């Protein structure tokens, strides 16, 4: 009796598999504007929320609500979400470990998302050049919402707002890392602990 309604999504799903395999990776239609920023990282994501704009290929989210799906993806991938800014020295110092992780887990169900909290006026002048020059392989998004008190707890109640901060999750299991990351192994340990 429910066969039809049950089948429809499966068919949809298959269609998507076919479609996404035909498209070259990292150039889904949403990503048309994407430049060199973080291409290879995006093909493994489900339902990336549509950004308000792209600057230098980086998806820009004006409101937290628009970016909120990034913190609640419900699939088999473990997401390693790092909050950073180009002006934050300890953030920049730990970026190589996230990059290392992205490379080491290429093709596996681990996805790093670097959430930039840069000043919106510096997205073009600082963030985009930084991401381009370093050829960051991890996905980079920028979150412009400065009403932090409204959304910090929606990421993790453990987070005071200090950056760097890293939120590792898979479905409903999560770990919050409120200190600077000192090695890729530390991130792997957090992933394994879920």
């Amino acid at each position: 009796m429910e066969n039809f309604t049950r089948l429809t999504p499966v068919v949809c799903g298959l269609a998507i598999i076919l479609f996404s395999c035909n498209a070259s990776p990292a150039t889904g239609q949403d990503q048309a504007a994407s430049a060199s920023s973080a291409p290879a990282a995006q093909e493994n994501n489900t339902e990336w929320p549509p950004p308000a704009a792209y600057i230098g290929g980086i998806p820009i989210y004006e409101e937290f609500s628009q970016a909120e799906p990034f913190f609640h993806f419900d699939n088999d991938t473990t997401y390693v979400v790092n909050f950073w800014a180009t002006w934050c020295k300890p953030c920049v110092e730990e970026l190589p470990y996230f990059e290392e992780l992205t490379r080491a887990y290429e093709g596996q169900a681990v996805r790093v998302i670097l959430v930039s909290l840069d000043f919106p006026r510096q997205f073009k002048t600082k963030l985009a050049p930084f991401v381009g020059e370093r050829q960051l392989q991890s996905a980079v998004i920028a979150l412009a919402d400065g009403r932090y008190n409204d959304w910090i707890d929606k990421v993790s109640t453990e987070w005071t707002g200090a950056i760097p901060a890293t939120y590792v999750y898979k479905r409903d299991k999560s770990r919050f890392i409120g200190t600077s990351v000192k090695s890729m192994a530390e991130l792997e340990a957090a992933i394994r602990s879920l």
Partner: protein
Amino acid sequence: MKHLHLIFTFALALSAFACNGNAGAEQQSNAASEKSEAPAQTVALKHDGVGVGDKAPAFSLKNVDGKEYSFETIKDANGNDPKGYIVIFTCNTCPYAVASEQRIIDLHNKYAPMGYPVVAIQPNDPAVQPGDSFAAMKERAGEMGYPFLYLFDEGQEVYPRYGATRTPEVYLVDKSLTVRYTGAIDDSVRDAESVKEKFLENAIEAIEKGEEPKPAATKAVGCSIKAA
């Protein structure tokens, strides 16, 4: 609907796996190794420390004028014992602290005559963040004409007792040395022009009226405090 959503999500995840082979070719290893001089210890988690209703930890710290100050020796703008203290952990180097600097000056100028002086405490270790050395603090305070105390948490013993994790971070302390409000100055640390709600000022007004601040605790993004 939920069911459909799940399958849809699953299918997308599957499709991603199915395509990983293609993606690999594009990916070039680019080992841009970061050289970090003094590895910074940073803290974005609240561990021990005080919250609303707790006693504010005592301190005796050196001001940019070279004198030591504690709650007992701090006066308001009229030379009287304060009705409260606006303790703000802040520094020279954090862009959000810099963005808040004028607001902190204005707060002191408005509230110190009413009995609530600003007491700024710089918690970063200059060994990790040279721009926050005592000499640099003096220079900044001089340049900007800080009307408030700018104390150096030398040895970094005071900020952990408060449980402060970032700059800027506020603890509003009343006459009985009880913490009444913690968190952000307002709802837009990054940009003064976008402020809609002045959390700290509202908290002071509440205390003045004998009420409890609402909200009594807020959060904001800030620079993690740097310790060696």
